[in-house]
């Protein structure tokens, strides 16, 4: 159960020989992720934590068989090329961990992937994880207890904080999806909520938004129009963020009058979605909806 990835997902790590790539390959293997290959141009024949390395995804598929998903640790300058390779090699899901990719490069590969029906998670995401089955990301796996809450977020550490709060009150997670901190991302709240709606292992959704853009407002309006729903509790970071300043993430900026906290909170509440004031309130609000 869960969405996007499960215990049968066959994974390739792009940029597996780099410091980050190698380090997280080990942690993902420890979690149980089925990593069948890695790429690193010119490093064919190497092994990283027992995973064979290839120059291209094509030869990895030829030698290892079918691959479902990739996770990209390639530096920003070369990341778009890695994404195109993954899309053209017929993978279904591409998780782009890389931070700092130029905006117009992202626009191009996100549009390209969408036309080809390939899911891009990120860029600038901690990745995604279906609890107990597959981790395609850099999050500490142990903070997510198994359960029926779908967690979708624009943040990294804040998501771990919230997962811990949920766990303390006995709420586990089905899948956690990091949308990514950049202004444009492959998936948005609506896409992921739709997947959670269809997932029998997910009972309710926790949405973690932040200032910048209007993804939360768009979700609220979409949710309002649905006839079949699963309960949602939201938390939005950045109530104290001033306009015009980038709050860490490239996407976390209030500009041209769009993206402030009050608009997000108001639109969510007008759609009947409860918004928590602090991360620690989320479990009890969720409890009131589910019990």
């Amino acid at each position, binding site marked *: 159960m869960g969405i996007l990835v499960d215990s049968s997902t066959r994974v390739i790590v792009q940029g597996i020989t780099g410091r980050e790539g190698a380090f997280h390959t080990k942690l993902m293997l420890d979690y149980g992720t089925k990593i069948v290959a890695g790429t690193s141009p010119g490093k064919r024949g190497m092994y990283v934590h027992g995973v064979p390395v290839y120059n291209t995804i094509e030869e990895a598929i030829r030698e290892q068989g079918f691959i479902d998903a990739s996770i990209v640790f390639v530096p920003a300058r070369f990341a778009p090329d890695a994404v195109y390779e993954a899309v053209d090699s017929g993978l279904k899901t591409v998780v782009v961990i890389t931070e700092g990719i130029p905006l117009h490069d992202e626009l191009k590969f996100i549009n390209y992937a969408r036309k080809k029906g390939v899911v891009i998670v990120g860029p600038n995401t901690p990745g995604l994880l279906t609890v107990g089955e597959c981790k395609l990301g850099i999050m500490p796996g142990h903070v997510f207890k198994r359960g029926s809450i779908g967690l979708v977020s624009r943040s990294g550490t804040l998501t771990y904080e919230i997962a811990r709060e949920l766990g303390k009150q006995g709420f586990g997670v089905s899948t956690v999806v990091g949308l990514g901190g950049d202004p444009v991302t492959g998936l948005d709240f609506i896409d992921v909520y739709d997947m959670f709606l269809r997932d029998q292992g997910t009972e309710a959704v926790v949405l973690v938004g932040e200032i910048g853009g209007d993804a939360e407002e768009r979700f609220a309006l979409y949710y309002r129009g649905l006839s079949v729903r699963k309960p949602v509790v939201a938390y939005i970071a950045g109530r104290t963020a001033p306009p015009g300043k980038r709050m860490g993430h490239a996407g976390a900026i209030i500009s041209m*009058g769009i993206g402030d906290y009050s608009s997000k909170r108001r639109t969510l509440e007008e759609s009947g979605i409860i918004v928590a004031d602090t991360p620690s309130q989320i479990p009890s609000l969720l409890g009131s909806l589910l019990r």
Partner: protein
Amino acid sequence: MKLYEYEAKNIAKQYGVPVPRGRVAFTPLEARQVASEVGGEVVVKAQVLVGGRGLAGGVKFASSPEEAVEVASRLLSSEIRGVKVSAVLVEEKICISRELYLSLTIDRAARKPVFLVSEMGGVEIEDLARRYPGKIKRIYIDPEVGYTSYMARIALTALNLPWSLIGDLDSLLKSMYRIMVEYDAELVEFNPLVLTCDGRVVAVDAKIIVDDNSLQRHPELQKLHGREYLDFERRAKELGFSYVELDGDIGVISNGAGLTMATMDSILYYGGRPANFLDIGGGATRDRVKEAVKLMLQHPRSRVLLVNIFGGITRCDEVALGIVDALGEVGGLKPIIVRMLGTNEEEGRRILREHNIDSYVEMDEAVKAAVEASRRG
């Protein structure tokens, strides 16, 4: 990164966009020189990167070079919304028939560049969207296809301009898209774009924002990056931290943008006021933590420092050592409240305890303690 109006206009001019004659002046004497070159009545505009310049008195007219000197010297010794004016743009005064709005930006939902077009120009897009939401036409560009000329025909209708201007508008929109792509811009805005009394289209104001992630492709702009920062922001950014100055009295250090914002917001929720946003990023070492803590211990306005770390890649023992190092170097200038958990938490707590620093497990408890300490001052 925001460009100044005069920089944006210089770029626009290179791409064939009609802008008023004139140029930037850094002294009143230069302003006189430009005014006499331009001739006739001129407009003198303070060059600042904050919005609402017109309402704040940053745009003045002068009917002679002598008056331009006077106006320029007043503007050059003033502040607009707290920002010192160090340059003015001196330009010919344009006879305006109608003010229009035209911009090219990125639509996050569509994941595409989009032209925003409106015949109601001259007000900020925020106000425009609020007051006349039905009066903004959106024209999307597929980034794999780029600009094509039918878009100008749609824009012409939305702007209610005569057909005789279709060629000019086509080149204008084409130039905007070229500027966006070639400068890696996230915004190219002409507001107002005006229809002059003699029937031409001229960009009277210009704004360009360049994507920060693309600055390495534009070394000439990268050099200028950070010039709008306040002093303390500059110090923090030179150390490589993601930092924003706020106006409260509780200093904040955290890891991850979302958690840092959530820490600030919780301070407000429990009745305090955050002094800043400082994200030390993932996997910060002892030395990085030391630099961050030293910086915030020296932060002039904050009375308390709250460190909130959720250890994953970041190790709590490294954080604790960094805090102890910082206190050793600059001393306990203010109370420091630490919340940490996760990787190597026990070891981190032991190190802090040895130095008589309390640490919390729960974020809410730490935030409440920080708010309490800020009240005691």
